[in-house]
């Protein structure tokens, strides 16, 4: 069987050069070669179009109550971002709720993830279902069911009920995020610490916590972002408390001050700036690692 030797020999040659196509000529061939890149670029433009509009209209000087048509450039909105009655309170409320809810949800969710990752116990399937369900329930069902709970128990909705609701929908996301990080968790490290005389608390602090910290931090950030952006569930359980998304919703009917766009742009720039720094740090670290290797 001399034929078998041949494919083996060809597969040894670098596949990259083999897969390269014969370069065609003319605009049609060019289009065919770059179709995917063009498509991806168009998709990215589609993604960023509304963001460009949000940022552009934050510099607008609207004549009427609504910020829908371009009237002229101004820096006033950026110089006085809180110059709209109620907007500062709404942002403060949003931040307070997000901090409390993400801290609580991250603590409880991380503990659940830890239990799932390192222990065998009865009812594991049931627990997994209970964590999975909130993520597959439409927000409107979750928001309205919580409202029926509060109505039936005679609880007045407000700041407290928003916090309760935000913790409830965040726990599942935290569990999933931390669990993904714990997938390769080596229990032997903990056992080694115990064998070397560390008690459970010291083991947790010196071994377990540093191992799960990155997962817990990213879960906390995710919870914070989800909380600060939530509208539907908050809307059902807010009473007379106004968060930033609720403020935007309220203004969409009567007047949309350009300051809304300013705040939106600020959140965007902060979040994306933070993530860019993160990507850059990772990139640098990878480069240094490959340099020392």
């Amino acid at each position: 069987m001399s034929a078998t030797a041949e494919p083996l020999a060809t597969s040894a040659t670098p596949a990259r050069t083999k897969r390269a196509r014969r370069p065609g000529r003319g605009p049609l061939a060019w289009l065919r070669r770059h179709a995917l890149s063009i498509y991806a670029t168009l998709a990215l433009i589609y993604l960023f179009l509304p963001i460009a509009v949000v940022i552009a209209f934050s510099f607008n000087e609207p004549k009427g109550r609504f910020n829908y048509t371009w009237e002229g450039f101004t820096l006033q909105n950026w110089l006085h971002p809180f110059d709209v009655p109620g907007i500062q309170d709404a942002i403060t409320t949003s931040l307070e709720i997000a901090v409390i809810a993400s801290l609580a949800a991250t603590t409880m969710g991380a503990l659940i993830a830890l239990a799932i990752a390192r222990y065998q116990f009865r009812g594991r399937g049931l627990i997994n279902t209970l964590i999975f369900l909130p993520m597959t329930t439409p927000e409107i069902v979750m928001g309205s069911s919580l409202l029926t709970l509060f109505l039936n128990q005679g609880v007045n909705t407000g700041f407290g009920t928003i916090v309760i609701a935000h913790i409830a929908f965040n726990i599942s996301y935290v569990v999933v995020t931390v669990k993904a990080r714990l997938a390769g968790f080596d229990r032997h490290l903990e056992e080694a610490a115990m064998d070397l005389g560390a008690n459970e608390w010291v083991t947790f602090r010196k071994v377990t916590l540093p191992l799960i910290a990155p997962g817990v931090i990213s879960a906390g950030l995710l919870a914070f972002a989800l909380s600060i952006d939530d509208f539907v569930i908050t809307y059902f359980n807010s009473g007379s408390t106004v968060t930033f998304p609720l403020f935007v919703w309220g203004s969409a009917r009567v007047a949309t001050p350009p300051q809304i766009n300013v705040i939106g742009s600020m959140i965007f720039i902060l979040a994306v700036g933070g993530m860019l720094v993160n990507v850059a740090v990772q990139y640098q670290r990878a480069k240094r690692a490959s340099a020392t290797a």
Partner: protein
Amino acid sequence: MTAIPRTGGLAGLARGRRKRLAPYLLLGPGIAWLIVFFLVPMYYLGTTSLQTGSLEIGYTFNWAWSNYSDAITNYHEQFVRSIEYAGLATIIALLVSYPLAYWIAFRSGRWKNLFLLLVIAPFFVTYLIRTLAWQTILADSGVVVSVLRSLHVLSSDGRLLATSAAVIAGITYNFLPFMVLPLYVSLEQVDERLLDAAHDLYASRVTSFLRVTLPLSLPGVFAGTLLTFIPACGDFINAQLLGTPGQYMIGNVIQSKFLQITDYPQAAAMSFILMAAILIAVTIYTRLLGTERLMG
């Protein structure tokens, strides 16, 4: 009695018991929270949906199944529309996201993370502000409408805002990350050596895509479509801001029944029907794709 203490004596026994209790102590607070503020509310949603009454005279529980039949007879149009809009938006989102995710996974080289970041970045602008931006883009006085009118794609008084197309486009846009991320994760895991192997066996690019890449990415397609479809079904913001009452979905009805009309029993019944409809749709879909095998 399966846990055998590693060190003998009383201390070892205590450690064994603590070990058995430990997972439940860790689970305790979070699971309790989910039971009290997720499962129990579902029970109250159920009982509320079988009550009659009004805010003035109070509500009484009397097995009022008529809430369900009334909801279906009066609002079947909005139910059907919700499934229809969500389904269309999911398909369009898949068509937009798949090539994008594919490109990032296979063609963006060392800038992968940066492009992934670019895809998620727009969604850090508050949901409502994003949707208001689409209102500006699609407005009658906007550039898009005037270009389409001058090209005679739209008639001289044709509109984009306040149409079904605008609502579906808004839903597609707002739930796009839920589609892109699972697709990217599954495509990123495709072993490139398999593609090389397919090529060595004389498969064309199209064949190797259809026979290797696509089947391997199906779990991502499954997760992405579900994560898009489910929240889209209950959405009411896009219909409210980009449509008219003619485009209202079931979310709009539930929202106004709960918060404006305070007809809680009827609204609760509709929430339950929505959940049941989604459950049925998802079950059928799972059977069709045979995903038990895929997910395992």
